């Protein structure tokens, strides 16, 4: 065990994966000599050299297109997109190519690329360093979507992603890159995809969240406990595959669901969760499903604290579900 921050745990996972498998390589903007703008790839260049830790020209479509070609040849590329906000030049490669290569080739060309990218707000990054658009990727069949919220999961989910046979979009909660630290198992620690993490047990309401929304959600649950409301917190860890069973089972127990994400509400992942609960847990529901989300606006700079869900807005929604308004 080592005490690490999330970004250190990611670095550790990359390091170990590259040590164990010469096919693993890292590519992206500033990932080499500079060690990444968030230092996630710190030290890799020195240890593994320029051939495996590749500073690319500034083109996201070039990065992902190149990574696809590498994977077609049997390499294990881990591409870094500097911010999720800048992934769109590569959206075509991700959605049209990466996600569909296995399917359109009848399984002849698997394409196991990992794309790591920091996402989310709360860092005074304004419109283009703050967005949380995981739903675009969860919507696209053929991609898996992982979002850790703890250092142990950051390492464990990233190692699983690197060993996975399918493409993985790995979204890193940059707001808590350094503010959350914890024990991380040494060695080949892998966290399976599709298994939610039960963060906290409770009988009155289920709070479902992931990534950087976990700390305020837990804080909300602690506030609620003092008010006599037992809140269960589930960390989804992966949106695809989704641990539907864990969500449904918890809501069957509590009868109430509060779905939390910082992404905009319209077509956000909470909508999918709400639909699943309406289909599979309807008769257990004692209150309307509530969503606590970002606004349906572009991501603001000065007012980001108003845009983002926080412990108070999450607790408020939970009180409403429990007390009926």
């Amino acid at each position, binding site marked *: 065990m080592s005490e690490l921050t999330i970004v250190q745990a990611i670095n550790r996972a990359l390091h170990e994966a590259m040590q164990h498998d010469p096919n693993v390589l890292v590519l992206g903007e500033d990932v080499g000599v500079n060690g990444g703008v968030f230092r996630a790839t710190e030290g890799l260049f020195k240890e593994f050299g320029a051939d495996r830790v590749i500073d690319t020209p500034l083109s996201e479509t070039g990065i992902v297109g190149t990574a*696809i070609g590498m994977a077609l040849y049997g390499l294990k590329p881990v591409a870094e997109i500097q911010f999720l906000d800048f992934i769109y030049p590569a959206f075509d490669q991700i959605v049209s190519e990466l996600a569909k290569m296995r399917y359109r080739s009848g399984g002849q060309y698997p394409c196991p690329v990992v794309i790591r990218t920091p996402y989310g707000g709360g860092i005074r990054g304004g419109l283009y360093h703050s967005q949380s658009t995981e739903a675009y990727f969860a919507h696209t069949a053929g991609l898996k979507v992982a979002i850790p919220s703890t250092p142990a999961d950051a390492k464990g989910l990233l190692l699983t992603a690197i060993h996975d046979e399918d493409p993985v979009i790995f979204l890193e909660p940059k707001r808590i890159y350094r503010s959350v630290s914890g024990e991380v198992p040494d060695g080949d620690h892998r966290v399976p995809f599709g298994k939610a993490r039960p963060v906290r047990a409770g009988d009155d309401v289920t709070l479902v969240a992931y990534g950087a929304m976990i700390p305020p959600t837990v804080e909300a649950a602690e506030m609620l406990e003092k008010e006599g409301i037992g809140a269960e917190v589930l960390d989804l860890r992966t949106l695809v595959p989704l641990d539907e069973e864990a969500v449904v089972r918890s809501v069957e127990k509590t009868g109430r669901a509060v779905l939390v994400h910082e992404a905009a509400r319209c077509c956000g992942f909470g909508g999918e969760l709400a639909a699943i609960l309406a289909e599979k847990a309807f008769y257990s529901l004692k209150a309307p499903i509530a969503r606590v989300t970002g606004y349906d606006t572009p991501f603001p700079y000065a007012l980001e604290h108003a845009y983002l869900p926080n412990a108070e807005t999450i607790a408020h929604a939970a009180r409403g579900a429990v007390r009926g308004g």
Partner: protein
Amino acid sequence: MSALSTVEPLTATPSDAERLFGADWASTLSVAHRWMTLGRVYDARMQALQRQGRIGFYGASTGQEAVNVATGLVSRPEDWIFPGLREQLVALVRGYSLTEYTHSIFADALDPAHGRQMPCHPTARGVHHISMSSVIGTQISQAVGLAYGLKLRHDPGVAWAFFGDGATSANDFHAGLNFAAVFGLPVLFGCANNQWAISVPVAHQTASESLAAKGAAYGIPGRQVDGTDFFAVYGALTEALAEIRAGKGPRLLEFLTYRMTPHTSSDDPTRYQPGDWAERGQRHDPYVRLTEWMRLHGLLTPDREAEEQARADTAVREAVAAAEAAPPPAPDTLTEDVYSPHSSAHRGATP
């Protein structure tokens, strides 16, 4: 085919041919001609079947056979082909089964991709033919990534990235050429400039003096070649490939051709092509140009031509019969191959 020449004669001499193809030059040309005959017969047959409603769609490569056949012959098994729109014949020359390819045209149960793609989008891993996308340009930077793997592992082989003139305006043309040159990778960028991107003529695609000239901006030697002259194409490919295989980095070849058919079976070129286009194309028909040269030099007799034609007709007829006898893909293949069979992701199974 008229005995009177309607085409620009090829200017190569038999000694040029010997220099290009070696002592066996006559048999290499016979092989090339046979593949071009097959391509021609196949395109004609499939366009007819499409009009009869027996297949859903077809995109011909008529007029581009010299490039495709020369590529098939110059490339090596360890090379990888990233096709643009019209390189299906390359896969066949490299050994892909005509019957299996035809199953993919009919999108039937024996299509290895289970009928998931439109016709003319084959995947043939056995001959290193990457699954074709409909999206213009995306394959270009993918070829670069594969070439990175070749270089990293010190493996022999070249990644061939094909694309049309229209694709030279797409993002991945720029990204791909740039990355390949920066990393010094073994990539042959082959632009099949058939002078049209559906209705848009190449003059509206670029103000550059040629597409080959674009290589210079990336530090890649570029060369424009008459893509309807089998000798010129073969020679240019041989030279470029020797340089690439020697580790000199990527090369760009622009093959000037004439699109001799509608863009696809869904297109009506009378809306946009000038009246003399068909005639101009016919004057540069790569198949007729090679045929006439071979007749002139005694490599083709009328009997031999008839025999070749009959052989191609039979091969295509048999492949079509096999495909028409095959059932449609099984319904449960709909949700397969979305994820690895070992994956717990079950999205493919919904609804």
